[in-house]
């Protein structure tokens, strides 16, 4: 019963918005804002075809692998930096500087070094996704509880034991905050990297449609991007709820106490 009502809550607003769009655009004569019915039929025609393999799949794979590489790098660099006060003092100003550079401006430079292939697109995605994960991991590790740290030492935890059972879970709430920020940046960069120079991908296809004035098809691509982002965020949310279920429980318990 509760699952059902939560599901209804979740889909109510999207349905209303879709209905609103449907009726507002019904009979629209504006070339750039075609009726939703036209967009939806274009959606079926365009995307339920070979394009799923030729354009959607490459985009999704590039996004997923770039995102995972960035997450791995963020953790691998963030843990040692977070643990060492000295290392932090050295690298933190540099990190803040690098983070402030908008990744899209790197695209032309990356094309010079890495060409226009998959490597360049991955580098663009990684160059943007890295910072939220890295900086949040550093912050999460830095803020680990001292008493818990003393506990791991008093009970003679191994280095691996400290990492697996103390450092990573303790920093996990902030790491996930970083992962969520990175995901939205990753989707933006996936599209941008495909708009500069590409021969396939969702971003590439949208630009092609726009340039050939296939407006309903272009809109259908934009809807598809939204769906891809939504699916990625749902998967991340699912993982987060599994990994951090203790954290949500702890927070709820603390709220009840006060």
């Amino acid at each position: 019963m509760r699952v059902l009502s939560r599901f209804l809550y979740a889909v109510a607003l999207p349905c209303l918005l879709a209905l609103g769009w449907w009726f507002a655009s019904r009979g629209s004569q504006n070339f750039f804002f075609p009726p939703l019915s036209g967009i939806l039929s274009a959606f079926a025609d365009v995307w339920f075809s070979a394009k799923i393999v030729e354009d959607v799949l490459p985009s999704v794979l590039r996004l997923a692998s770039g995102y995972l590489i960035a997450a791995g790098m963020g953790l691998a660099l963030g843990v040692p930096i977070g643990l060492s006060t000295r290392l932090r003092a050295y690298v933190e100003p540099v990190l803040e500087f690098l983070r402030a550079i908008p990744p899209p401006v790197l695209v032309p430079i990356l094309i010079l070094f890495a060409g226009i292939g998959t490597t360049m697109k991955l580098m663009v995605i990684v160059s943007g996704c890295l910072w939220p994960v890295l900086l949040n991991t550093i912050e999460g590790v830095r803020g680990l509880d001292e008493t818990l740290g003393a506990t791991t030492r008093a009970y003679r935890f191994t280095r691996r034991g400290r990492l697996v059972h103390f450092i990573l879970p303790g920093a996990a709430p902030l790491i996930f905050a970083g992962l969520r920020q990175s995901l939205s940046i990753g989707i933006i960069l996936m599209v941008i990297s495909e708009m500069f120079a590409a021969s396939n991908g969702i971003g590439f296809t949208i630009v092609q449609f726009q340039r050939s004035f296939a407006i309903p098809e272009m809109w259908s691509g934009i809807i598809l991007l939204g769906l891809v982002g939504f699916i990625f965020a749902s998967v991340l949310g699912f993982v987060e709820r599994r990994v951090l279920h203790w954290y949500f429980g702890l927070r709820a318990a603390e709220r009840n106490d006060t």
Partner: protein
Amino acid sequence: MIEDRNAATAQGRPTLLDVDAVKMVYSSAHRTVEALGGVRFTVGDGEFVCIVGPSGAGKTTLLKCISGLLRPTGGTVRLEGTEVKAPPQAMALVFQDYARSLFPWMTVEANVELPLKQAGMARRQRRDLISSALADVGLTDVGSAYPWQLSGGMQQRVAIARAIAYRPRILVMDEPFAAVDAQTRADLEDLVRDLWHKLGVTVLFVTHDIDEAIYLGERVLALSASPTVVMDDIAIDLPDARDQIGTRSLSRFGELRKELYGQIQRARHTSG
């Protein structure tokens, strides 16, 4: 048995822990602070020793030096004759802040188990130790709960279970009951006395509460204000079987209380 406990002091039993002129000086560019000024005492095997001192007496610093979490700037700590340079295997710690010494991402059982796992103990043996430790602290059916689902007193019981499952020779407790309510605190005090009897473990118990120290200990060490030294070492000649009402209303309890209270007051005045 009862006479035995009463008569025993450090002299009566082989020395387990030897704290020898431990000094701790913190120095920065502008000033040096002497926290520990040469603390010296021994704890016999199987003893229950309480340490009391005014707040700010460097009790926690002293415990960190004893447990190998902090290297003293002078003097040595020896456990079973070996110098303590890192946390020793024969020692288990219970911290004051129970909520921050249990891992909130693990169940009660996993919290008790983890130190054993880290020591490379086989699964069967771990299972046995966990269930007997949880039974000893009176928590048989919360093994799969998370610490934050339990009350403060129960969380501290979990921390005690983790410590005794580790099978230490000496159990070191840093003001473990300072943050729980009075009734829970009385229950936990009796629990620690019972465990001490049952397991034959040595206990070093730090508190700021004079009554608690007298009620629990066989010996009470009174610390001075910083730079901390041991000012007094009092044998608690109360009957071994203690209970919250009876023991605390003995006239001898009152005398010991008065004696220690005077010591602590003097310590505060010399510091002020």
